């Protein structure tokens, strides 16, 4: 839920990403059909021990889960009202357990390893014109764009604040959106000039001609 890679590496980092993902989805499937709250509480205890085994830093991550409290409380109350305390405890504990398990995988797997583990799953999508090898480029671009967009927004905002103390109007968002679209044109030109996307684009064109 609260993502972030854990550094320095631990024993859990050494397990291959694909194996961790398989175990995660296997355990999740089994947990989804369980109804007894005691199983989930036992599971929570085990997972906390695993967090502790990863070190103090991993244990500290558990504190970040408290943002879930209002939602879990709401689910507990609704469940308690309709199905009683045992069912309510089971639902809340199951949710918390699954989130903690998934976070374990995210915390101990570098993004590149995760990308390598998941990209082959996109091969079947190639028949819809989505190229698996373009995905890595797309991921890199998005991660680069996020700070750029912040910068564009901050510039628009500073220009506004330099002129007035009134709150920024919706017009500012519109200009930001135009900046954004303009930037996409520039980036596309830069990619084409460097032929970074050449093979991928040629692939798309031949595919379109084949149709």
């Amino acid at each position, binding site marked *: 839920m609260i993502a972030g890679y854990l550094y320095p590496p631990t024993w859990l980092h050494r397990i291959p990403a694909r194996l961790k993902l398989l175990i995660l989805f296997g355990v999740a499937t089994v947990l989804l059909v369980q109804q007894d709250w005691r199983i989930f509480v036992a599971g929570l205890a085990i997972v906390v021990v695993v967090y502790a085994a990863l070190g103090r830093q991993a244990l500290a991550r558990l504190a970040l889960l408290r943002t879930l409290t209002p939602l879990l409380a709401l689910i507990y109350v609704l469940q308690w009202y309709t199905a009683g305390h045992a069912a309510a405890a089971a639902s809340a504990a199951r949710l918390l357990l699954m989130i903690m398990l998934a976070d374990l995988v995210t915390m101990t797997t570098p993004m590149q390893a995760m*990308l390598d583990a998941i990209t082959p799953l996109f091969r079947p999508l190639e028949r819809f014109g989505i190229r698996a090898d373009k995905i890595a480029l797309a991921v890199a671009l998005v991660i680069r764009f996020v700070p*750029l967009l912040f910068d564009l927004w901050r510039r628009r905002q500073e220009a506004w604040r330099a002129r007035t103390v009134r709150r920024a109007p919706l017009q500012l968002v519109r200009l930001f959106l135009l900046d954004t679209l303009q930037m*996409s*044109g520039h980036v*596309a030109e830069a990619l084409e000039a460097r032929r970074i996307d050449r093979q991928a684009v040629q692939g798309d064109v031949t595919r379109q001609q084949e149709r």
Partner: protein
Amino acid sequence: MASNTDTGDFVRMCLFAALIAALGLLPKFDLPFLAGVPVTAQTLGVMLAGVVLGARNGALAVSLLIFIVALGMPLLAGGRGGLGIFFGPSGGFLLGWIPGAWLAGFAMSRFPVGSVPLRAFTASIAGGICAVYALGIPWLAFVAGLSLPAAALVAVVFVPGDVIKAIIVAVLVSALPVSQLQAGR
């Protein structure tokens, strides 16, 4: 011009994925339209992606963002990310963004009745609310063990905020040059 080529489409897709992320990470009080409302602006980005990029590219942009979140980047509102999201109560709403952007783009291009802002508003309601909730509510009911009506009750709190976002999409889109609207072509 490059923005009319496949590379252009590809870059816009990446840019909108980043835009949805940026909308969620900006401090709330910075946004001129959401001050004090307990919702994120990210669904605004999802509606925009569908309406501006069209059904296919809008859905791809959202899928790309969700994929990066699954890889572990904290790109959701409040700096959330990682696989835990998908097992959490809001996992269905997140996955619902994909059909949501698709439906918004589809409605925008296939029902060209009325003015551009009106179409953008209707498309945003159809995609950003109907499609997203259609996946989100059953998922919430399933993972939280709630009945469907109880799950809908939890979700209904967010409807007013989403309607405001659809209105904002209409205002923003009406001011865009027509050449930038792929779904409107």
